[in-house]
C-alpha cells in the first residue's frame, strides 16, 4: 500500500507539470486553433529567464513568482507579435509549422545565451520533506501539485466569469461572430499566448526547482502532448486532468511492471482512449458543415 500511494504521489507530481503545460496547449488551441509545438521551448525560455533574474537579483521566492509571471506574459506577447501575428489569415497548418520552426529556433537560442550546462535552480522554496501518512514529498514537489490546483482553478474561474475569459471562449467558438460583437480578436490571440506562457513558465520553474535548469527541458513539452490529447485539446481543464492521469499511469506501470514502460504507457493509453472517444475524454466533437 505504501508503495502504491508513493507511486501515485510521484505520478501526480510529474503529472502536474504535464497537466499545466497541457493546459497551456489547450488555451492556445481553444482560442486560436493553433497547436503550439513550441510550448515546451517557451516554458524553457521563461524558466531560464526566471533563473537569471533569481540569481542576478537574488530574489526571495515570494517575489520571484510575480516577477516570473510578468516576464512570462511579456515573452508570450512578444513571441505572438513577432512570429504568429504576421501569419494571421494563413491556414492553421502553416501557423503550426511556424511554431515548429520557432521551437527549433528557441532551443538553439537558449543554448547560445545560457550555455549547454545544467545548473540547479537556487531560489527554491525552503527545502525539506513533507510527510502525509506514508507518502513522503519534497516541498517543491508539493508546490508543483499546489501550483496545478491553483492554475486549474484560476483558468476555470477566468474563462467562466471574467469578461475577457468569455470573450476568449466566444472567439474560440466563432471568430466572425465575436468580431461582430466587438471583440478585438488580435488582442485575444496575444492574451492567449501570454496566459499560456505564464502558465507553462510557472510549470517550468517548478520543474527546474525539482530537477535542474537544463537545456533539455523542452522534452517535457513533448511529453505533455499525450496529456493534452487525452483530455481533449479544446478543454483546458480536461487537458490538465489528462496530465495527471498520464503521470500516474506512467509511475504505476514503471513501479509495478518495469521495462521502461514509463515513457510509452502514456502513448498506449491515448491510442486506446482516442479509439473510443476521438476528441479526447473531455473534448468537444468538431461539427462540420457539409
Amino acid at each position, binding site marked *: 500500500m505504501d508503495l502504491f500511494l508513493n507511486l501515485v504521489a510521484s505520478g501526480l507530481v510529474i503529472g502536474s507539470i504535464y497537466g499545466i503545460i497541457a493546459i497551456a496547449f489547450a488555451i492556445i488551441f481553444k482560442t486560436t486553433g493553433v497547436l503550439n509545438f513550441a510550448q515546451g521551448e517557451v516554458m524553457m525560455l521563461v524558466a531560464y529567464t526566471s533563473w537569471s533574474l533569481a540569481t542576478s537579483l537574488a530574489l526571495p521566492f515570494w517575489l520571484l513568482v510575480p516577477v516570473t509571471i510578468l516576464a512570462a506574459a511579456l515573452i508570450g506577447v512578444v513571441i505572438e507579435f513577432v512570429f504568429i501575428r504576421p*501569419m494571421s489569415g494563413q491556414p492553421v497548418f502553416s501557423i*503550426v509549422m511556424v511554431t515548429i520552426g520557432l521551437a527549433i529556433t528557441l532551443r538553439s537560442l537558449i543554448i547560445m545565451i545560457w550555455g549547454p550546462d545544467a545548473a540547479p535552480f537556487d531560489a527554491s522554496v525552503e527545502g525539506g520533506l513533507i510527510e502525509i501518512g506514508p507518502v513522503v514529498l519534497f516541498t517543491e514537489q508539493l508546490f508543483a501539485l499546489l501550483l496545478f490546483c491553483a492554475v486549474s482553478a484560476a483558468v476555470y474561474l477566468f474563462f467562466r466569469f471574467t469578461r475577457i475569459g468569455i470573450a476568449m471562449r466566444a472567439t474560440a467558438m466563432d471568430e466572425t461572430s465575436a468580431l461582430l460583437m466587438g471583440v478585438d480578436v488580435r488582442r485575444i490571440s496575444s492574451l492567449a499566448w501570454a496566459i499560456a506562457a505564464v502558465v507553462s513558465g510557472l510549470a517550468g520553474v517548478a520543474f527546474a526547482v525539482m530537477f535542474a535548469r537544463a537545456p533539455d527541458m523542452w522534452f517535457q513539452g513533448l511529453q505533455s502532448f499525450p496529456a493534452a490529447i487525452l483530455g481533449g485539446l479544446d478543454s483546458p481543464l480536461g487537458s490538465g486532468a489528462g496530465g495527471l492521469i498520464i503521470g500516474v499511469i506512467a509511475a504505476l506501470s514503471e513501479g509495478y511492471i518495469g521495462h*521502461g514502460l514509463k515513457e510509452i504507457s502514456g*502513448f498506449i493509453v491515448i*491510442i486506446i482512449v482516442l479509439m473510443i472517444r476521438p476528441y479526447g475524454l473531455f473534448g468537444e466533437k468538431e461539427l462540420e458543415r457539409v
Partner: protein
Amino acid sequence: MRTRHFVETYEKHVSLSHNPVTWSWALVLVLALAQLPMVASSYVLSLATTVGIAAIGAIGLNILTGSTGLISLGQAGFLASGCYTTGLLIADYNWPPELALLMAGVVPALLSLLVGVPSLRLKGLYLAITTMAFSFIVTHFLLYAEGITHGPYGVRVEDLNFLGLDLATTRGLYTLVLVTAILVTLMALNILRTRVGRAFTAIRDHDIAARVMGISLVRYKLVAFMVSSFFVGIAGGLMAFQFRFINVDIFNVLLSIEALAMVIVGGLGSVAGAIMGAVFIVLLPEATREALDLLPTGVNNMLSTYIYEIRGLLTGLTIIIMLRIKPQGLVGLWRDVQRYWTQWPLSK
C-alpha cells in the same frame, strides 16, 4: 511569348508533361546527376545520397499529408521499421539485399494499416499525435525486443552486393539511391494522376463530399497510408545501406518533424515540392556552415563555440521566414519564377 497552356486532348491533360522540352530538360538533369560521382568528392557524394534518401521519404510523406491531408508525425517509426527490416534480413537471415530492400517497403506498409485504422476516426492534430504515439511505440519495441532486434546493440549490415553494385562505396550507393529516387518519383507522379490520386485529393479537400460522391474513405485512406509507408520504408532501407550500422537513436520525433518540415517548406501536395524541400532542409546546415566560414576569422572564432547552435537557429528561422513569405513553399517560388520568365516583359 506564351499566353497560357492550352491542351486539346484528355491524354495531354493527364500526361506528366506534354511538352518535349520538359522531358529533355529532365533528361539533362538526370544525366548531370549521373555524372556527379566523377566530379564530386566523397563527402559531397554522401551528402547527395542523404538528399536522395530524404527526397524518397519526403515524397512518401507528401502523398499522405500533402495529397490526402492526413497529418503524420510518425515517419520516424516507419523509417525505423524499414531500416531494421532491411538490416535484420541481411544480417540475421541472410536475405539478398535486393529482396531485403523490397521488404523494407512492404513491412512498414503492413504496419501502417495499424496506424491507418485509427485515422478513420481521428481528425487533424489528434491524428498527428496518434501517429507520433505509434512512432514512439515502434522505437520502444525495437529497443526492447532484444531477441529479434538486437536491442541497443544495433545491427551491422555487411553484405552489400546489390545487383552487382558494391554499396560499400559511396559511388555504388549513390547510383542505387539515384535510380530508386527516379523510380519513386515516377511512381508517385503516376499514382497522383490516376483515379487513386484524385480520390486522395478529394479526401483532403472535403472528405464528406468525397464520400457522397462514392469514394470509399476507408479504402482510400488505408491505401494512402500503405503507399506512403511503402516509400518511406524504402527510404529507411536505403538508410540501412548508408549507415551500415543501425540503431534506434536516430529515429526520434525530431526526425519526424524534420520530415514534415521538408514537405511543408517544399510545398504541400506536390512531388516536386517534396524533393525541393528535402534538398533544402538537408543542405541548409551545410550552407550555413559555408556562410559562416566566409566571415572574417575574428567573428568566426567568436561564433565557433556555438556554431552548432547557430546552424540550428538559422534552420528554424529559415523555416519561419519561408512560411511567412511564401506559404506555398519552394514549389510556389519555382512557379512564380516560371511565370515571370514566360510572361516577360509583361510580368508583374
